[in-house]
């Protein structure tokens, strides 16, 4: 005879539940609470209602950071959604030595973004390798201020992010491509479909789920961009702080012994709302799209 012990399920889920409450749920809720206060580190704060949010509306740096983060996301998402797919198609072939290429393309992923950022700073400096090379071959007379203008910094950062992220998303696509039935390609080829047509009509629908996932991940991480811009601008956000992302602003405002925790929490909440949007959209599209016409599904 089995004895019902009502506490056993709670014992089993208890550790995980405790972890979620202590390290995810409570801090999350507390950040929202803090956003309604003027809290400072070490000295606490008082409830100030919506003052922080009202101040955000008139804070030029905040709107600037929103634009920076969104433009960054808009630039990164298509590049990092399609380029890794093309790369995955290239290295998917089973030919001798291909694993060496796969490994090489993955190398940037394991490199420290801070180290990579510093190297890129030296590359794109007004007296860095890029400018000196361009001057040497006579393409330019004056150095291009890659790291001294808002859009120059952002373009460099996007390039860095794409270069560093290609390998990671390539691996995601390689896994997805493994699920696209070879017979679909063969059938399409027999019907006279060109390579481009097979890519558009077989490959892309086959990896549609992966594309949604990749684009959602990139959107969220691009909106939250920090390290690349921080390293390239020495933490200043570029001239005038124009290339400062939202997370950099959170760090600038809320960091240190005298940071404004309440205000930075309010920025964090807005950022959370911005990032949750794309995730919900992807979840919705995934549900609408149903099963992808992968090889397995087709069978």
């Amino acid at each position, binding site marked *: 005879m089995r004895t019902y012990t009502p506490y056993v399920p709670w014992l089993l889920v208890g550790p995980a539940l405790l972890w979620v409450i202590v*390290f*995810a749920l*409570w*801090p*999350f809720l*507390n*950040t*929202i*609470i*803090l956003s309604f*206060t003027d*809290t*400072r*580190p*070490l*000295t*606490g*704060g*008082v*409830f*100030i209602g919506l003052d922080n949010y009202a101040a955000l509306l008139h804070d030029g740096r905040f709107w600037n950071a929103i634009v920076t983060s969104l433009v960054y996301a808009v630039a990164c998402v298509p590049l990092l959604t399609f380029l890794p797919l093309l790369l995955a198609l290239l290295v998917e072939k089973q030919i001798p030595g291909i694993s060496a290429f796969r490994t090489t393309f993955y190398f940037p992923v394991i490199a420290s973004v801070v180290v990579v950022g510093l190297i890129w700073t030296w590359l794109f*400096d*007004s*007296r860095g390798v890029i400018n000196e090379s361009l001057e040497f071959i006579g393409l330019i007379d004056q*150095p291009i*201020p890659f*790291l*001294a*203008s808002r859009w120059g910094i952002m373009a460099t950062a996007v390039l860095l992010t794409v270069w560093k992220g290609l390998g990671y998303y390539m691996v995601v696509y390689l896994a997805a491509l493994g699920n696209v039935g070879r017979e679909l390609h063969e059938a399409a080829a027999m019907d006279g479909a060109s390579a481009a047509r097979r890519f558009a009509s077989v490959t892309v629908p086959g990896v549609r789920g992966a594309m949604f996932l990749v684009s959602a991940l990139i959107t969220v991480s691009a909106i*939250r961009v*920090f390290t690349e811009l921080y390293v390239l*601008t*020495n*933490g*200043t*956000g*570029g*001239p*005038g*702080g124009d290339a400062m992302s939202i*997370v950099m602003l*959170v*760090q*600038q*405002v*809320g*960091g*240190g*012994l*005298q*940071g*404004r*925790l309440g205000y*930075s*929490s309010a*920025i*964090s909440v807005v*950022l*959370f709302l911005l*990032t949750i949007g794309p995730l919900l959209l992807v979840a919705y599209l995934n549900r609408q799209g149903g099963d992808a016409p992968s090889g397995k599904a087709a069978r």
Partner: protein
Amino acid sequence: MNTIRTTRRTALAGGAGIAALGLAGCGMSGGGRSGSSAPAEAVEGEITGEITFQSWSLKNEKFTPYFEGVIAAFQDQNPGVTVTWMDQPGEGYQDKVLAQANSDSLPDVVNLPPDMAFPLVQGGFLLDLAAADPELEDVYVPGGIDAYRFPEIDGAYGYPWYLGTDMNWWNLAALSEHGVDEASLPTTMDEMFETARMLHEAGSPDPLISNMPEVTITSENGEFTFNTPENAAYIQKYVDLFQLGAMPPEVLNNDYAGNTALFKQGKALWTTATSSFASELQAEAPSLLEGTTLSPRFGEPPLFVQGISVAAGSKNLPTALAFARFLTNDENQIAFVTLAQGFLPGTIAAAADPSQFAEETDNALQTQAVEIAAESMKTAVDTTNVLWTADMKTNFTQQTAKAMQGEITAQEALDNAVQYGNDNLL
């Protein structure tokens, strides 16, 4: 309005919340305390038990034997005492101290510069040494003690430990290619701007000035007041130089350390740095050593103060106070600055005779730097404004960068920085 009062722990969790949201990775916390004076009996008790001492980026081949010796000597003098020494890395020290304060684990004796001590004093985390130690003003240099006196707060919160200043470092080898020799080095900022302009027009690939303008952050009655026409005129000279193309574009993102880094790379011909820069050059850019020369800072040299504070919440206040005094006594300060050449001790008696801590070195530049530092210290002024936060400083840099790019005037940059500072005062 005061319906909610957040506590330190609430704010600490808030920091974790921001991290959980993936929105920021910096340490954040908060809290509230009041008072930091200990009752007399608390600091006059028996010297015994365990305490912790925290230094800042001083655990290395050079200083570790020194600290181990000081701790051993203190323990020998006070049987039953155990001092545990912790050293924190240079990067992220603020965040570390913040986390320690929030978790009530601030070391009993801790190395803090004045600007980091101030918010801790506001939170009631540090002991008022003026109240706890009646001999404070008789033993330590007044300028050092004053650095640990804060606006609208009674008392003094740090024993002056070691004091430093900086000086001008010139890449004379490169300058001489354009006709600038040791005798014609600039002696004022106006001459600096002129020389920078001349070098640019002469086709020097390396700029003379590669730093952002810095002004003394003044305040009166809790309001910043540095948006003066004089400061605007000073910044305008940087603006003119930048727009002439005589400064590298990356200067807009640079800081004090960035300028010295450029100097070491041979990409800037002038920088300011403390006397320890000589050993940096020897280690990292030895080819520059021979062609580098020094001169005192223009105008009043800055005074950098490092001090030793005692945690108000120490469970062993008498021992903590005794160790803080022992560490900063004449003998130990002289031994310390003998190792840290170019710095001066924080006690009146030790600072009175520099020959006590002068050391022979085979690095001629080091010797010259120490001599200049010793002379400059006589007139050095601590211009640290503890009300000026890191956020305000970054904002000022951003505003100045806008002025350098011609988006706003120098006066507007100063006005904006003052406005932002006043709006966000603690």
